[in-house]
């Protein structure tokens, strides 16, 4: 599934459509602590978290995540949004808890 297909599936809301529509969503990753994400998220990961700030964006760029999904209705703060727009990072949202949201995508990727 590509990022564009994930967006079009309507599974999650859209906060920022990035510059990577054709990027393949390869894996599901969930954690809020940046040091864990930095070492464990791999290229193509869809990253589920409640941390919506610029540091989340920075780590997503460095690890080459395909997208970030902010769960539990968590918002992306203003500087985070600016950074996501600048760097072309796809950020989605959902009111679901992290586990349920990640499971939804996991089922879809099977």
């Amino acid at each position, binding site marked *: 599934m590509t990022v564009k297909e994930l967006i079009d599936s309507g599974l999650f809301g859209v906060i920022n459509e990035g510059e990577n529509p054709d990027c393949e969503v390869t894996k599901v990753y969930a954690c809020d602590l*940046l040091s864990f994400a930095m070492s464990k998220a791999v290229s193509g990961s869809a990253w589920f978290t409640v941390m919506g700030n610029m*540091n989340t964006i920075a780590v997503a760029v460095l690890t080459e995540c395909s997208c970030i999904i902010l769960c539990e209705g968590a918002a992306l703060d203003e500087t985070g949004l600016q950074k996501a727009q600048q760097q072309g990072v796809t950020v989605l949202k959902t009111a679901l808890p992290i586990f349920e949201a990640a499971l939804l995508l996991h089922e879809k990727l099977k």
Partner: protein
Amino acid sequence: MTDVIKLTYKVDGEDFTRAGEASSDLKGKLKKMNVPPDAIRKVAIAMYEGEINMVIHAHGGEITVEISKDCITMVLADRGPGIKNVELAMQAGYSTAPDNIRTLGFGAGMGLPNMKKYTDEMKIDTELGVGTTVTMRVNIA
């Protein structure tokens, strides 16, 4: 690539919006030089953690990077408070990060362990009240 390429980055200790920029820039440059992805990933992880530590624990500093055909060497120097007990600081989960930093997702206490894990050599020179210099080397296989 026969020569050694040298890069320097100033890390602003107050500006969280720019934390990670040096790592991003270096990653982009290494990609352009066709350094193997595995080595780039290690450098990006180690450098990001080091850069963040300079911002959250040491009011910023300076990073020097040397890229040769065999390895990438990063030297992160700050004039922060220094590290009292390096052995303790190296333990997974140990962190003195304050709550306001933790709410941003930092402070897992995994920075130094990650830096050690993802580099081929790591050395910490630190003196209380003077500063800390972390030297890391990633070999290009």
